[in-house]
């Protein structure tokens, strides 16, 4: 442990732009450090350790933000706001849960705030980017020709696209909390218990949110059966 501490201190004092080999070696060794050590170092003011923590989780955070907000600029705002909150409040983290859970609690709260703000003032918001609708794009002659390959049966493809479009529409009608629960369950692959921890609520409440969200989606798809 003292060796790790020495390495981190060196990396921090030399900064990210340092060109010295020693500093570079210590910076590159950061990814191998235990999460708990990194958090402790970050809490002690080690900037390099904090940035390593960010790198470990920010891909998932940005993905969650993009799926929920559906606009890159909003996702960027969520990313910034969330990690700055983490940075400012890191000293309050007491290792009572995993850092990942604590981080997601902050991220989901920021997302909820943004979604609620968007719901409250829809006129201020730019339209969301819908992947399905964008994929359709301008059609040309070849789009309407019969596909002979069985895997690409146009009728089936069309039906699948219709289902996805309806799911997208139904998702827009979900409440911010239902939307987050649905997103974290289906696209982040989290267990309901972990989602509850992240949202600061019970597993039962998360179950209810997921159940309501699924019912809304099913009602949207009812006519297609």
């Amino acid at each position, binding site marked *: 442990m003292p060796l790790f501490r020495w390495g981190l201190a060196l990396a921090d004092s030399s900064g990210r732009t340092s060109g010295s080999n020693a500093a570079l070696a210590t910076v590159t060794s950061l990814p191998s450090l235990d999460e708990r050590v990194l958090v402790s170092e970050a809490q002690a003011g080690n900037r390099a350790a904090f940035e390593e923590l960010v790198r470990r989780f920010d891909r998932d955070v940005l993905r969650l933000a993009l799926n929920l907000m559906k606009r890159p600029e909003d*996702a*960027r705002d969520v990313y910034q706001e969330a990690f700055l909150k983490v940075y400012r409040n890191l000293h309050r983290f007491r290792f009572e849960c995993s850092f990942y859970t604590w981080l997601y609690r902050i991220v989901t709260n920021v997302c909820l705030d943004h979604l609620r703000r968007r719901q409250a003032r829809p006129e201020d918001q730019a339209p969301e980017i819908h992947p399905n609708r964008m994929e359709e794009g301008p059609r040309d002659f070849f789009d309407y020709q019969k596909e002979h390959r069985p895997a690409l049966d146009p009728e089936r493809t069309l039906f699948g696209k219709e289902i996805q479009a309806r*799911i997208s529409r139904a998702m827009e009608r979900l409440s911010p909390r239902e939307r987050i629960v649905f997103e974290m369950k289906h696209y982040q692959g989290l267990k309901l218990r972990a989602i509850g921890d992240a949202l600061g609520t019970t597993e039962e409440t998360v179950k209810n949110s997921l159940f309501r969200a699924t019912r809304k989606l099913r009602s949207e798809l009812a006519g297609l059966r």
Partner: protein
Amino acid sequence: MSNAPKLARCEDVAPLLVFYTCDELTAEERGQIEAHLANCGECRQQLSEEDALHSAIDEMPQPADRLESSGVLLAQCRSELSESLDELSAPKVDEGWQPFGFVRQWMALRPGWSAAALLLVGAIVGTQAFQWLPFSTGASTGSPVNVLAASKISDDQLSKMEVSGVNFSRPGGTIQVQLQAEQPLTLTSGEDDADVRRVLTFVISNSDRFDAGVRLDCVEALRAAAMDPQARGALLAAARRDQNPAVRLKALDALRDVVANADVRDVLLETLQRDPNPGVRVEAVNLLVRSLESSDDAPEALPDVVGPDSSPDGVALPSLPAAGKDSEQRILRALDELRQHDSNRYVRLRSAAALRQIGLQNLQ
């Protein structure tokens, strides 16, 4: 604890099918549901619908796949975060104690009210405060103060300027000085008296920078202001040091009306003794005679230092008085010295004539 299955009825099983699909049930719950599904076609149908929905959701393209396929957004986010962290990590500027900080903050947030408040305070101070001040209680006892308008030209401009011309308008006595500086400027006496005087004295005092014609014009222009100590000082300096005899002569002439002043007399004496140009020395003699004529304290008798036969042209000179004020004594001695030893005959003659003139005056 009963061994009977809890999830035997369809209404109990149906709400759990969502979680069955998501694999969010305990092993016991899963076993009970699977037992029910084996005997219930309706619930199996519902489960297949749940599976279909689950598959459709899984197959749906996620916005993140499309919006962040290149990794550019993530790089941008990291870069922005790093900048924000730099700002947060930067040491705070210690602003220290700021007097009236609250008032300043209040005023910054309410500019309209602040303006109104300041006007009110200004009006109150303007109308009331002077009554309480000690100097406003009685009549003014201080000496009058000349308040001059702000100068149009700075010292820096003055040092870089060129004078393109000095024009005189005789009827009105107006003087116009045209300057070539970074920004050409015309100064007119009456409107810019102080600046005109400044420029003229600057030109005369810096004879090496301006040509003799301009210097002559400036000396002429300053003639009217010879009573002013600053202008007189410049004229005296020109008379003493200008390399051009015409300018020195002109400067002496400009001092004609103030020859009674001690500083002028000193310069005249110096000119008399040191000026290399005979014409200038003669003018100095003339002015010294004039100074003695205009002075009330002219010597009553010439000192007896000059012998009757010592005149170059054999003119008998009055005796110099034994007593007299220092300056007059010095003038007479200087004139006598000139009369005897000046290299120029005309100067010697003019000095002798001056001494005679002074003597006759005193005899009368």
